[in-house]
């Protein structure tokens, strides 16, 4: 039980605070009965961390269980933990592939690439430029020659990228302010709850 575990706990605690404050009337404070509560996608993509991200809908959809973007608290925690600094590279690559796969057919095909490019450049490129870029991407990364990227091709390409693991692909860890509160209260009567 290292500090990793602890940090996960603390982060989870803070995350629940955020999860709750998005929709206080839906999200209960008491999880002992394990309620089945899901927040709709519209609330989540308005979070300040995700608001400016061009792929916000895809991110939320990739982490939801049924692919429609409604997140339960478990999915919410998963999303932030994969996007955080401490997730391993392989895990990030898996979810990145899911995010960029717009039609969820487990392949990144040409139409997925076009959608990605349009979101990235806010549709400023002309049609020939888009075609050129998509052709180049498939030419560079496609190993098995089927004209679309499978997960193996994607992983091979992303593992060599210099920028992928840097913190700009993660979200900040939360401040551990609430640890103060936790520690002081637990010192005296925390054990009584055991």
């Amino acid at each position, binding site marked *: *039980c290292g*500090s990793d*575990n*602890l*940090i*996960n*706990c*603390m982060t*989870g*605690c803070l995350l*629940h*605070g955020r999860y709750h404050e998005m929709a206080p009337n839906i999200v209960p*404070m*008491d*999880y*002992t009965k394990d309620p089945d509560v899901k927040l709709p996608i519209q609330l989540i993509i308005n979070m300040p961390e995700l*608001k*400016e*991200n*061009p*792929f916000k809908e895809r991110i939320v959809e990739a982490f939801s269980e049924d692919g429609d973007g409604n997140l339960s608290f*478990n999915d919410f925690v998963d999303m932030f933990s994969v*996007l955080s600094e401490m997730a391993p590279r392989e895990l990030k690559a898996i979810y*990145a592939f899911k995010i*960029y796969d717009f039609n969820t057919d487990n392949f990144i095909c040409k139409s997925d690439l076009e959608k*990605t490019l349009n979101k*990235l*450049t806010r549709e*400023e*490129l002309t049609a020939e*430029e888009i075609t*050129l*870029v998509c052709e*180049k*991407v498939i030419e*560079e990364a496609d190993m098995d020659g089927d004209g679309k990227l499978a997960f193996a091709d994607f992983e091979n*390409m*992303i593992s*060599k*990228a210099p*920028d*992928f693991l840097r*913190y*700009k*692909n*993660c*979200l900040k860890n939360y401040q551990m302010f609430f*640890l*103060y*509160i*936790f*520690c*002081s*209260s*637990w*010192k005296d009567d*925390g*054990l009584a*709850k*055991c």
Partner: protein
Amino acid sequence: CLESLIRIVALIQLRKITICSDIPQTEKKGKIQQIKYLIQMIHSVLCWISEKRLRMYMRTLRMWPLFLCDPLQKWMKFQRDFENFKTACIPWEMKIKEIESHFGSSVASYFIFLRWMYGINMIIFGLTFGLVMVPEVLMGKPYGTLPRKTVPRAEERTAMNFATLWDFSGLAQYSVLFYGYYNNQRTIGWLKFRMPLSYFLVGVGTIAYSYMVVIRTMARNANEEGGGDDTSFNFSWKMFTSWDYLIGNPETADNKFASITTSFKEAIVEEQENRKEENIHLTRFLRVLANFLALCTLAGSGYLIYFVVRRSQKFALEGLDNYGWWERNEVNMVMSLLGMFCPTLFDVISSLENYHPRIALRWQLGRIFALFLGNLYTFIIALMDEINLKLEEEKIVKYNMTIWEASLYNGTIPENATAPPIQVDPADVPRGPCWETMVGQEFVRLTISDTMTTYITIIVGDFLRAVFVRFFNYCWCWDLEYGFPSYSEFDISGNVLGLIFNQGMIWMGSFYAPGLPAINVFRLHTSMYLQCWAVMCCNVPHERVFKASRSNNFYMAMLLFILFLSTLPAVYTIVSIPPSFDCGPFSGKIRMFEVISETLENDFPSWFGKVFSYASNPGLILPFILLMV
């Protein structure tokens, strides 16, 4: 390390929970259970505990075992904060990044060059200000005590007028800004500060420093260029890893979108250039033709300049009053007209060549550079003529001085006897025409007029044009934004060359006008803000956005050439023209560099002088120079 402390305490508590509670073993469910407890605790505690009490509790815990900190995380966080701090300290970094994201790296490379020049000018300014101007102001004789430091009686009436000051005569001429103000006393003040030596060494030192910096930057850039980057997944990485997930601010997001789009466009241009199929023979023929035309233009303009300068020298000999306005200003007008039309001509010629835009920019720069060298040539010739005129005048003034001094005594003493000097007001003493101050004034005037021209061109050519196109588009027959005149693009080559030639003027003139680096620092500072604003407000990106070459060595090479050219006139005047007899720190000597030998004789022990005279044997110096090269 309060964070770590808290982690330690929480860790201990958590261990206790793990021992005594019945949390299921599957990790995820266990995590959720812990979260449940934590949530309950936090929300119940939040109601009644205040921050002060919290801190009190923390202090009573009294546990500071730092070795249980997580050092790696802290180190990563520290590194990240330090990187952010370093980036925030670089001046104008945000502005330049914004310009780069909207206009591409080639336009941004001009601003990076401008910032680098600003750094060099700051150092030169520091040297001249600290070692030349400040000692003279603090420890030298004040204004009005010496003839060289006082406005002559004849000019006193107009000395404070704005028109005179703008022209840098009058009071401005007799101030620390120019060479003529400085006294030739060997040491001044209680510090025994050796003013003439300092003046000479600062002059030589600024040139040496500039050489060193330019060559070092070129060497460093050459190293970087050899590195090369892995371009095997260029487009893929641009597509999948370019978005920055930490962005939460809408303005930053806008800049990031623009920068991603520009980066894609640059890569697309590179790819299109690589894919272009060429008919080798036609291309070669067209390129040879274009070079031939450009050479003809350059030769023609060179001959025109030479011809016009010869004519103006002839006019000057005959006296300018016989001729009208055109003859008087012929040289300036021809220069301006050439400067306006030839670059456009070169632009047209370059469309024959069909180069990659980056290569085409270099050819354009090279050709306009050769054209502007003609400008430089005329300026130097004109200056040399004036210096010779002043030297002639000086001989006459010297002769008149003896007559004037004799008239002061008015025949009260015989000719060859000595007498106590009569007190004369410094303003009344007849002056020699101080050619060094004249040279300094010419450079200062040129810099000021250059600056004014640039600013007015920006305001009229870019800003007013943009205003016109934007607001008159509604009531005009054709679409102003797509047709003529439309918004202007940022002229990289013109601006870069302007900057380089301006710097050449500074290097030439700072020996004779120590205030010139100060003026230039001010000019570069305001220029940076004005041009950044003008680019973002009035210009549109180029149609084909291309990636600047990472090294900028091309600009550096031109700068080095100009540095070399500008040191030649300065060195020539130092070595071969005698200084004025009544102004400046070297007055009274036969050559300016004698101050070095004088210092060696008087200030260093005698054996040092002997060693130096052996070392300055040409037989030793030449191999040494060759070794350095």
